């Protein structure tokens, strides 16, 4: 495969694809590891040559896929700062947040063969880290739900509200309650830097509520959107 440069039309798309696939796997894995849903709905699948747990529930899968489908154009245009998976208890107070910070490193060109296997390796390591994260996190109370937030830059959210990328899947501005956590402690989980993505983990530990950051570094903005999750 020839080298891809930043000017290539496909570059942004490739990166966005890789990232969204990874996010999907990571979200499913977090749901499994943190026991948000009973483990019976999960099935072992293979990704990046290692086994991962994916849910089989169609509505759940559809929700996650739709969310990421909407996020993908944001990543392509480099407008998504971070994707946050918030885990909330029964009263909808956030107890945990897994933050994927996305950033674009300033490299101009990539040669795809070694790069993709390198990226695969890094993503594998990330997935492994998620699997063992419950060593550093407290148990969640029962009956938790989750929601996905996207922090974008500038006014990208306005477009998202106006144009429905997916029909009947509206995005709304997130409540402050869900975005902010009190006494949040940051727990770094994993940092990954590659030529096409920068991913970093940062961790803080907290008793009351926890924020675990998986940062995929891109540059950022302050508006967060969320989509409703039926659970």
């Amino acid at each position, binding site marked *: 495969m020839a080298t891809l440069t930043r000017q290539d039309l496909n570059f942004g798309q490739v990166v966005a*694809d890789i990232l969204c*696939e990874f996010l999907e796997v990571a979200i499913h894995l977090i749901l*499994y*590891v943190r026991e948000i849903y*009973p*483990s*019976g*709905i999960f*099935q*072992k*699948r*293979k*990704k*990046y*040559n*290692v*086994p*991962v*747990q*994916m849910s*089989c*529930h*169609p*509505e759940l*899968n559809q929700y996650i*896929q739709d969310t990421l489908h909407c996020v993908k154009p944001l990543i392509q245009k480099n407008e998504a700062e971070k994707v946050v998976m918030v885990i909330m208890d029964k009263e909808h107070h956030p107890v945990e947040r897994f933050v994927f910070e996305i950033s674009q490193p300033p490299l101009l060109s990539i040669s795809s063969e070694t790069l993709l296997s390198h990226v695969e*390796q890094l993503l*594998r*390591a990330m*997935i*492994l*880290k998620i*699997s*063992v*994260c*419950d*060593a*550093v996190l407290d148990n969640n109370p029962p009956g938790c739900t989750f929601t996905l937030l996207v922090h974008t830059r500038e006014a990208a959210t306005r477009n998202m509200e106006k144009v429905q990328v997916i029909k009947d899947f509206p995005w709304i501005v997130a409540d402050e309650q869900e975005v902010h956590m009190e006494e949040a402690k940051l727990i770094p989980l994993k940092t990954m830097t590659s030529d096409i993505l920068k991913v970093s983990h940062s961790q803080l530990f907290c008793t009351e509520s926890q924020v675990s950051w998986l940062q995929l570094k891109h540059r950022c903005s302050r508006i967060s959107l969320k989509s409703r999750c039926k659970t």
Partner: protein
Amino acid sequence: MDDLYLDNIDEFVNDQNKIVTYKWLSLTLGVHVNTAKQMLYHYLQQKRNESSGTPLHATYLVSGKCVENGSTYHKVSVVREDKLDAVKAKMDVTISVHVYSVQRAELKDSSPLYSTDYDAVKENLKNCNKYSAIRCAAAVPLSSSELQRAQETALVPPVEKEISKPGFNENTSATSKPSAKQPAGIMGMFASKNASKSQESSKEVKTEQKEDSSLVETSKSKTASKANPMSNFFGKSAQKKADEKPNKSIKEEMDSSSTASATASLKQSQTSSKSETDVKEEQSKVSKALKVESKDTRSKTKRPEVVDSDDEKMESQQKKRRRIVVPDSPPVPNVHTPSPKKQVKREPVSHQEESSEVKRRKRRRVLRSNTFVDEDGAFVTEKGYVSESYSESEEEPESNSQAKDSSSLKQSFGKREEEKKEKSQKKTSAAKKPTKQPSIMGFFQKK
């Protein structure tokens, strides 16, 4: 040996929150695997005695002889610490027990164990058995001519194998379908892996199979019949396919005299996680790094496949699945597919048609499948050609089918959990799409 390794392990486990398996440790520190096992054991002892600090969890590899249905087989499994005594008690003879891994997190399934070793082995692919205790003098890398021959023979059409035997711990096995096409790049990996492990293991299996008289069913017994030992890998590694649920228990009978080392067991690299029993069975690591790259082609098309595999998905208790398809159209073929209790494949039956907006009514023969419960309590899916009338601008009323499905499914299902019931209802409605060709007028009638 000095105690520096204890600090090393401590750093890995506590500071870096890694899973330290004995194999990873041996490759990282450059020591023999048995030394690594000892290291882990000492570390564990030391930490447990201190009884302070963060709790540690460990998994153990237990191998021994078990008897089931009158036949003895050698069983190797990776178990969590809390299940260790139970598993040992179930075995007639426990041949070996050693620490498999040490970690801080309590693992819910065995996937991270595999992931931990994956990269370490991949880096040391050429000499990943340098520190291993399993040796075979005849295992050498293939020369390039042999490699080419192997590549050609490997492109044989896939053989469908059905392995369904209730496992020892309620494990069930799934069908496995080695994929025919393997990209050439993989063969290189296979060749070097071949050298270290596969040849020896396939040879051992072949000799043992001849000695076997009992009904021991192994995936290798099926693959041993194949001429090419390379196909063994496709058979095993293809079992990793997500579509087929990779729940296998491999039972092998080995005469202890024929094995190279006392603890030598043909461990295959499949991991299956059992939620019921929490026993992790890890089979041979022979083809561990050889996971078929055909999965790469699937990784990009994961989404459409998720739906397919949903339909195919078997729960942890599978019944034997027989599918007999008679392809001739005019006589009605009766296809009996006893599907497991939890799964219903029900296609919308003919009352899908819209009576309104009929442009032209035609009759045609359509292959419809009907699912019902027969007297044994098994679900039977009958596929038949049914002559039905349709109109060119017919729409599938999804809501109708949903409502109908939900009512019938609620009656049919047994003690299934609520979520799964709804899930399968939605599954069936979501999975079925109209397959007729859209007519040009259809554009105007759709909402």
